[in-house]
């Protein structure tokens, strides 16, 4: 209440000073608003978010995933294309922590042979042959975050192989490939949501604020896009991408295609929020003070919906990640040599292969965990976004 009185006083003062240019009034109003409310709202949100334990866990997992993706080349013991053909289709290895009575993580060495009946390669761990896992070992060279050339990896072995999630048919370490795949899978979501947000925020805010024919046009557009079930439409659109395009271009076009449908949901949500806020007193005050539409939209409406934009973006991440992995799983999304979780899962599509080597479906669990984490985090954010309600 005190703040409100202060604001009112300042506006009256401004009028008394005969400084009636809308810029300066709006500027003053904005400043007083920011000092009085904007900071405390974010702090309130944070306080409420912290209380929600599952949401915090979700947030930590999301953060962990992105950090791992950022330092992917360092965390992964092998590079994306390191083929160790003598270890093809190696099941996940067991890591043992105690050797000779003290802490020493190690894996057993392997004796490989062939099954006399099926001629499949078999691996027998050799308990006598302990291979210690070393930290910060030298391995294949890479550029950390694409900048600093180095060859140190978080962990690795000096002989044999360490493969905690097994290898694929070409002897490539699944764990390393999953980490590298997360770089694509997790950024597709980010870029896709950013693009949808750009389209969705502009059209949603415009349609809510102006109403009339703008609103009508945008709403009809949304209805038409949404009259198609998303996955089949995505499939048809991505199937149209020429095979000879470079993988990176395909990656960007796929994010664009994902956001071509994703924006509709964002726009709908934002329109609803804007419709509610449009009728609030402070917008009326700004309008009476002679502020232009652009000023009101960019200085009042968008900041006021900002917390909702954050929530909506978080909640639309799962569908983006899911869409990318589903499309890549079907062979219509990201193309090798780029690797995403969906691309890795494509190997598991063959029933015979999957039944022989079930660990090939592990990338799917990473998709599930990331979606779960985003859902938990988004749910907590949604509750926190309205810190004034209990």
């Amino acid at each position, binding site marked *: 209440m005190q703040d409100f009185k202060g604001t009112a006083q300042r506006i009256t003062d401004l009028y008394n000073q005969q400084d009636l240019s809308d810029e300066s009034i709006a500027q003053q109003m904005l400043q007083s608003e920011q000092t009085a409310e904007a900071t405390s709202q974010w702090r309130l949100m944070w306080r409420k978010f912290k209380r929600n334990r599952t949401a915090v866990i979700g947030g930590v997992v999301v953060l962990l995933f992105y950090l791992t993706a950022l330092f992917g080349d360092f965390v992964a013991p092998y590079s994306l294309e390191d083929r160790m053909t003598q270890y093809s289709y190696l099941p996940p290895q067991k890591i043992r922590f105690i050797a000779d009575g003290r802490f020493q993580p190690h894996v057993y060495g392997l004796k490989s042979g062939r099954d006399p009946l099926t001629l499949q390669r078999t691996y027998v761990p050799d308990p006598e042959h302990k291979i210690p896992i070393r930290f910060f070992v030298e391995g294949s060279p890479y550029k950390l975050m694409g900048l600093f050339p180095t060859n140190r990896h978080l962990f690795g072995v000096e002989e044999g192989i360490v493969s905690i999630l097994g290898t694929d048919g070409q002897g490539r370490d699944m764990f390393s490939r999953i980490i590298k795949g997360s770089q694509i899978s997790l950024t597709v979501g980010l870029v896709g949501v950013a693009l949808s947000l750009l389209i969705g925020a502009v059209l949603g805010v415009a349609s809510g604020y102006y109403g009339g024919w703008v609103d009508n046009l945008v709403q009809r557009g949304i209805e038409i896009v949404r009259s198609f079930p998303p996955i089949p*439409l995505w499939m048809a659109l991505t199937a149209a991408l020429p095979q000879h395009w470079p993988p990176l271009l395909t990656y960007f076009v796929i994010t664009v295609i994902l956001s071509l449908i994703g924006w509709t949901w964002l726009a709908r949500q934002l329109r609803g929020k804007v419709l509610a806020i449009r009728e609030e007193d402070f917008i009326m005050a700004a309008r009476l003070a002679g502020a232009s539409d652009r000023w009101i939209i960019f200085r009042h409406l968008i900041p006021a919906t900002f917390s909702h934009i954050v929530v909506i973006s978080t909640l639309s991440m799962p569908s983006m990640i899911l869409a990318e992995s589903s499309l890549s799983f079907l062979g219509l999304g990201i193309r090798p040599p780029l690797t995403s979780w969906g691309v890795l899962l494509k190997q598991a599509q063959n029933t015979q292969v999957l039944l022989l080597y079930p660990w090939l479906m592990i990338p799917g669990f990473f998709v599930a965990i990331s979606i779960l984490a985003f859902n938990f985090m988004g749910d907590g954010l949604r509750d926190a976004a309205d810190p004034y309600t209990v």
Partner: protein
Amino acid sequence: MLPYIVKRVLGMIPSLIIISFITFFVIQLPPGDFVTSVQSQVASSGGGMDATTVEALRVRYGLDQPQVVQYWRWIKGFPTGDFGYSLEWSAPVWDVIATRMGWTLLLSGLALVFMWVVSIPIGVYSATHQYSIGDNIFSFLGFLGLSIPDFLLSLIWLVVGTLVLGIPAYGLFSPEMADAPWSLAKFLDLLKHLWAPVIIMGIIGTAELIRIMRGSLLDVLNQQYVTTARAKGLHEKKVIKKYAVRMAINPLISVLGMQIPKMISSSIIVGLVLSIPTVGPIFLRSLISQDMYLAGVILLFMAVMLLVSNLLADLVLAWIDPRIRYE
């Protein structure tokens, strides 16, 4: 009510026309056409086609005509049940997809029933026992159900069913039953194969419906007419069943239209992984081989299914909720 239905059905016609335009545009997007994809297939097996053969094929399939003409040729047969010709299967599109459409509809329908039968009781329990251990467990399971992608569930089922439980987890029939004439044994065999894909397809929707049902019933339980009913000494069971749940169920119907597209998407992926003859696998194949009329009709059918289910949801809602006016 009848004028309302007629109005809504007529209102669908412009949407249908726009949808058919977009569908045609989308399936025309890939560079080249069916003949180019045949050409590259022939080339990859070491053969070649001369220019006159290529031209002849194009003329035969009508691919030499302008796009508008192709669109018109495709669309004009629809009212009479002629959905065009599948270039890859050399058969009318309808013959290729008819049984597959049937399976898709059956699976989706059963999944819908499963969703409703499971989610309503759980939602009611969660709302009437808010914050109890049961409610928390169901909420967590719901989150889990929302987050596990259908392809992962199918893969897990394939591995667990085959390797752990030792039952065939894919296909619709056991191999020895596939070509047998319909009999009770074949029907039982079908049921044995059917339940898992139905549950997999329904799980995401179930999780959503539980949340909606719980929230909606919690809102209704706060309303005054519920308090009145209780104050008048009505048995609590009756208050919930006859008063609260009947109103709380409305949002479930209105999200029906949102569940159908998810069901369609799931049927594609589940069909592919568990080798079930839904339209999914054939849709994927037709997209890759640029069998445009087949792909187009499937995409169009999916959009129409969505449109019709939205309409049905609205009609059911208008029918059971007297507060909705027909204007």
